[in-house]
């Protein structure tokens, strides 16, 4: 049944893309249906993830709908494909599928990043594509080294594989010191495609990497974990401090992404303690969700001035990590995971970073917000804000749900 639904989803989005040349609205409808189909293919215990992904994906689709670009119609299908890949990656334990999804989320964004209302942004595209290709290559090499070393019990190869995997991930999502493309692309490209790159495209790399690391965990892991912690700290500081003096909103958000990826990455240290690994997974996932919703909201505000001040403040406060917004809970889970893994200092640095970030998020909220917010764009902002506010009711359900799917965080045959 799962396969059928997935097939149907792929077919539908392909057809939608094809027919959208005739009328862009066909592409829109087909993509939405395709996304829903993809999500329904999930096992019931993963519905919560699917539903949240669907919200993020649909928000992306709606933002595309509200703006114009050169490939109107096909762009929806690209997002649908990203949703498809994300849905696939959460349920799959097959190594080939995992690598496939990694490529699948990477490649469509090459096109996406160059789009805008008027001209094709070639320069941005080149920068982005170069990094992504590099990332994909390193990531895949790392993956194979990891898997190979794991079965051969070769610690040296394991360490190199681990480092390459993390660096590949870093290049892909923008973790310092490999984050150079992020501020440039985020400020130069059109806000809407960037919002997609900054949101839904971030899930797959993290999930793949996490699954691989969990699957290949061995006694050597704890000695190399420090490397992850180091990168995470570097990324947080580089992102947050870099954002402090940046003026263009896009650039600020770029740095913010660097910082957020640092937060998410830090949860990887939890691999040293499997008892509460679900806290780390929940932390990473929720951090990505919170980041996605906030980024979509902010980029929409950049694109189309007129998003209401209450919304922009909600996004900003969530990024800062204020309870009871989603950004708080994600950091809470991550920090809990860190504390449990014995990484007290990392936890403290993480929370200190959330304090450093206060000034620029508030500045962003003030600069991007306008009035109470009544226009159409505010629909997107409203949904994003509700998404973030969802955790006003303490999200124990999220934790419980993640506990239910911890079993899928393995790779078959490894």
């Amino acid at each position, binding site marked *: 049944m799962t396969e059928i639904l997935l097939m149907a989803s792929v077919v539908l989005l392909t057809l939608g893309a094809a027919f959208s040349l005739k009328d862009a609205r066909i592409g829109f409808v087909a993509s939405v249906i395709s996304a829903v189909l993809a999500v329904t293919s999930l096992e019931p215990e993963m519905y919560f993830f699917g539903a949240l992904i669907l919200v993020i994906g649909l928000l992306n689709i709606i933002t595309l709908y509200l703006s114009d670009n050169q490939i109107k119609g096909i762009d929806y299908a690209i997002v649908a494909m990203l949703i498809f890949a994300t849905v696939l990656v959460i349920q799959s334990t097959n190594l080939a599928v995992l690598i496939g999804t990694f490529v699948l989320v990477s490649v469509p964004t090459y096109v996406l990043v160059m789009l805008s209302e008027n001209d094709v942004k070639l320069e941005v595209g080149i920068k982005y594509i170069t990094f992504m290709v590099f990332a994909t290559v390193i990531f895949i090499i790392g993956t194979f080294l990891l898997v190979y070393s794991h079965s051969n019990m070769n610690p040296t190869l394991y360490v190199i594989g681990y*480092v390459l995997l993390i660096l590949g991930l870093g290049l892909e999502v923008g973790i310092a010191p490999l984050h150079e493309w992020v501020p440039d692309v985020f400020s130069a490209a059109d806000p809407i495609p960037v919002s997609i790159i900054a949101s839904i495209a971030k899930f797959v790399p993290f999930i793949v990497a996490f699954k691989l690391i969990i699957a290949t965990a061995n006694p050597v892991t704890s000695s190399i974990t420090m490397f992850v912690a180091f990168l995470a700290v570097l990324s947080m500081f580089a992102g947050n401090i870099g*954002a402090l*003096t940046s003026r263009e909103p896009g650039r600020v958000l770029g740095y913010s992404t660097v910082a957020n990826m640092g937060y998410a990455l830090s949860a990887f240290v939890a691999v040293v303690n499997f008892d509460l690994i679900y806290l780390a997974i929940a932390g990473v996932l929720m951090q990505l969700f919170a980041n996605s919703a906030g980024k979509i909201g902010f980029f929409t505000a950049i694109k189309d001035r007129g998003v209401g001040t209450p919304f922009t403040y909600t996004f900003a406060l969530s990024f800062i990590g204020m309870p009871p917004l989603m950004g708080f809970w994600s950091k809470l889970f991550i920090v809990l995971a860190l504390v449990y893994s014995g990484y007290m200092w990392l936890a403290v640095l993480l929370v200190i970073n959330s304090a450093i970030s206060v000034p620029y998020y508030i500045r962003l909220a003030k600069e991007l917000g306008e009035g109470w917010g009544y226009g159409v764009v505010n629909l997107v902002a409203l949904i994003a804000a509700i998404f973030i506010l969802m955790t006003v009711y303490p999200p124990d359900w999220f934790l419980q749900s993640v506990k239910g799917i911890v079993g899928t965080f393995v790779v078959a045959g490894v």
Partner: protein
Amino acid sequence: MNEIPMFAVLFLFPVISSLPVALAWIYRPGEDWARKLPYLSVFGLFVSLLISLNILFNFEEGFYSYPWIEDFNINFVFVVDYLSKYMGALTAFIAFLIGVYGLEYMRDDYRLGWYWFFFNTFTASMLLVVYSDNLFTLLIGWEGLGIASWGLIGHWFRDDDDIAFVGTQGRKVGPLEMSWSPSTGGWRAISTIRFGDMPMFFAIAAIYALTGNLDIHSIPWEGMFEEIGYVGTVALLLLFLMGPFTKSAQLPFSEWLMTAMTGPTTVSALLHSATMVAAGTYLFMRLTWYIEPWELNIPGLETIYLLVLFLGLISALYGASVALGLRERKVLLAASTMSSLGLMFASSAASFWVGEAALIVAFWYLIVHAFAKASLFLVAGHLIHATHDRFCSGNLAFARKMKVAFAVTILATISLAGIPPFTAYWIKSGMDGVMEHLVADGMLLPFYLLVIVSLIYSAFLAKFLSLNFLKGEAPHHEHTEGGQLMKLAYTLMVSMQIVLLAIILLHYEEHASHFVEEGFLTTSLTVGILVTASYLIVLFKPAVPAFSRIGVFLTDRMYLPFLNDYILPQIGWVVIRVVDACNRGVDFFFHTAIPSAFEALSRAIRSIQKGYLRVYMKIVAGSIMLFLVIFSLMGW
């Protein structure tokens, strides 16, 4: 339990009855109907008077308690005993009389609500202090005294009328202007009192911690003193007595009382002579009454009582000398009050060696002094009204126009000076007896100090009389009509001297008869004659130009104001400047230096973003190689 509601009314009614005028003055100051409300306040005082008389005549001696915080053994406990029943009646009586006087004296004032509220609050607080056996209850009254005193001293807050000042405006000694406005006077009073109250507060808390009890009569004093040893006893009592010392303006805390004369004269009469300042000595007496130090053998107590004895005598000497030099009517009386309080302290402290009798002497002196000094103050107030001058002025011609005031002054001064056979003579004889007793114990000094103080005391009283009615300058301004209520009040007040005399001579009171015996002893008679001589001499020669240098020294109160107004504030300001500099430093560090550092760092991080892919790839490739090399080397 009939008594408890009675006590409640006694304390609460004066306050409640003054609320209407207080509220009226906040929202509708100065309206005609609001100016009638003080009668209500005085009625409140009258009710208190009735109750206190009822307590005096009808209550059984003993303790009356009402639960407050039973879990902590803190309760309202009121005591009716020899000390409190007389003291209470005296307080209520004087307060009522001065209230009546105030109706006229303060009639046209600009801040009646404030005045009457604090006046009545003061009365209630004083009564609370008097009747409290529980130290915490007492503390509430004590704080009430402090705040009321502050409020009333600074009553004329506008500082715009020279008549309300103390000192001479514009006269400078060194960096200090020897002039104090009412608001300064209030500040000096509360700051000094606060300095004493808090140590006392601590001492009470310590007593509570040590014994779990706050009722003076049932605290196991002896056990406590033994438990904490010599040092503990001295430290504890010293801290405790900081309260009474500051309240009763003993050295070196006397300055506030002098500038307290910036308040209306009624206030000076009630608070700063008759009752409030006496609360310090009263509290000391009350403690001594129940500690019964003469029964105990605690070395720490001896040290403390010796200290109090000499502190009292020295303060008495200081006060009397300063009074001799002063020419401001009220300030002169204030200094004399301080002197009398010193005598009371000294005499009560002597009880350690002499026994309860010394305490009785001190207490009776308190009573006589209260009535006499209140009369003098009330007269002084009337004189200030009549002459519009704070400084002593008036001659026989003036005295003829102010016959009642003149007569009252004569009676009050001779009653207070200790001229035989007037009231204070008998008490002073008792005091002479007490000090002689000390001579027998090997302490000569107290007796001689007492005699010297008595002589000076009598001298300045005569000076007051002489400069105001006999040999002073003619007043620049005379306004002698009216003042019927004022005259009535001080006449009644001074007539109490006759009543007291009758009580003493006619043996209405058991302890008083003892004074009569003492009065016929040779020593007492000798001292009495000396005092009379001193009185008469000064009466005819109130000012001696040859001594003007010393006079200035005394008028400037031996330059003690420098302590309050120059030395301590200067130390304070040095600390404040240091603190301020630290604040600036910390502020700079956190709010300028750290943000700047972050900004610089931020620019550095952003400086990587040159926009050239070439550069980026170098960084990326470099980093990846670096990490791989590091991990290869590190691991294996």
